């Protein structure tokens, strides 16, 4: 059974109230205990594994040695037979038989050890999976606990201001007003930038003698003189 059902039990039992904690449940302690035990077992297994693996390697080397010796003596026994030294060939054959017995004994030991090493490796993997699974389960508890922590401070603030009706709606209005003002300011900023751009162009044009020339005292006097001449 996963820890979620324990969380449900805790919630139903009112563990979400301030001051109480879901973490103090029996299930959490069991998960933590299992993690500790699994970690200890892995640690032990790894230590013995190193020794066993070394023995396994040594036995393999010994086995290879026997195989090489046997092949070597078989060749020599054949040579003895070919040269007619029957008695020597028998002696060598007996030695080969001894070597083969020793090889078989070593081989049995080697296989047993190899199986043991594999078994320990399987056990480590299994324990490791238990650790990962339990850690995931504990993460759920931790999440609920942290959510509780992260919610509680603001919740008490809300509770304190709850006397005001329409708290949410008022807060929303304030947010919207602020966002509208921000948008207006952005637009005003754009307008300002545009205006600055336009006036820069106009002043450049005026400086270049293009466009409307500004009214000056002289230009007005010229206009009046022209009017007088006509009249």
């Amino acid at each position, binding site marked *: 059974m996963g820890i979620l059902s324990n969380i449900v039990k805790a919630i139903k039992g009112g563990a979400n109230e301030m001051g109480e904690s879901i973490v103090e449940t029996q299930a959490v302690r069991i998960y933590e205990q299992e993690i500790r035990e699994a970690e200890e077992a892995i640690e032990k297994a790894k230590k013995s594994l190193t020794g066993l693996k070394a023995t396994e390697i040594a036995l393999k080397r010994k086995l290879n040695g026997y195989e090489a010796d046997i092949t070597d003596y078989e060749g020599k026994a054949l040579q003895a037979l070919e040269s007619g030294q029957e008695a020597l060939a028998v002696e060598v054959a007996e030695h080969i038989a001894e070597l083969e017995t020793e090889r078989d004994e070593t081989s049995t030991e080697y296989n047993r050890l190899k199986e043991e090493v594999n078994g320990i490796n399987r056990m480590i993997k299994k324990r490791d999976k238990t650790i990962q699974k339990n850690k995931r389960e504990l993460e759920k508890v931790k999440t609920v606990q*942290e959510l509780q*922590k992260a*919610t509680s*401070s603001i919740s008490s603030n*809300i509770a304190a201001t*709850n006397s005001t009706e*329409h708290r*949410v709606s008022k807060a*929303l209005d304030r947010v919207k007003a602020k966002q509208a003002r921000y948008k207006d300011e952005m637009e005003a900023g754009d307008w300002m930038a545009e205006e600055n751009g336009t006036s820069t162009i106009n002043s450049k044009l005026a400086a270049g003698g293009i466009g409307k020339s500004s009214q000056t005292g002289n230009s007005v006097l010229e206009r009046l003189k022209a009017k007088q001449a006509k009249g």
Partner: protein
Amino acid sequence: MIANLDDLVFRLNNHTTDEGTRFDAVLSENGIIEVVCSNVSEFQINIASTETQLLSVTPLFLKSEVKPGGEAELNELLLQLSPAVPLSSIGLQGNTYILFGAMPLETSFENIVHELEVQAENTVEVLDAIEPLLV
């Protein structure tokens, strides 16, 4: 990726998004970062952390703020809304309805900022949608 919660606080306080959003972040005594996004300053976001994830939580309203008799309708509405809300989920923590997001601890700072901005926007949208069911 952020180094720790202090680092996140420091970087949030010195950051302005492309949209001009700024953050006011404080690390509280109980290890929670309290963040106010300038675009939605009325609704604070709290950031908590576990061994694997960052949790961003915005308390929305209390059970007691739901119109009398409207709780079932509100709960169903929120369950239907939740899948449609990007990056955030809606939940109930004790007596408080919350909007929350979860990110792996390895999340880059830029993505954390993005998540916070979106969560702030989601808060306003969700509340706007269900506001008629609140007192």
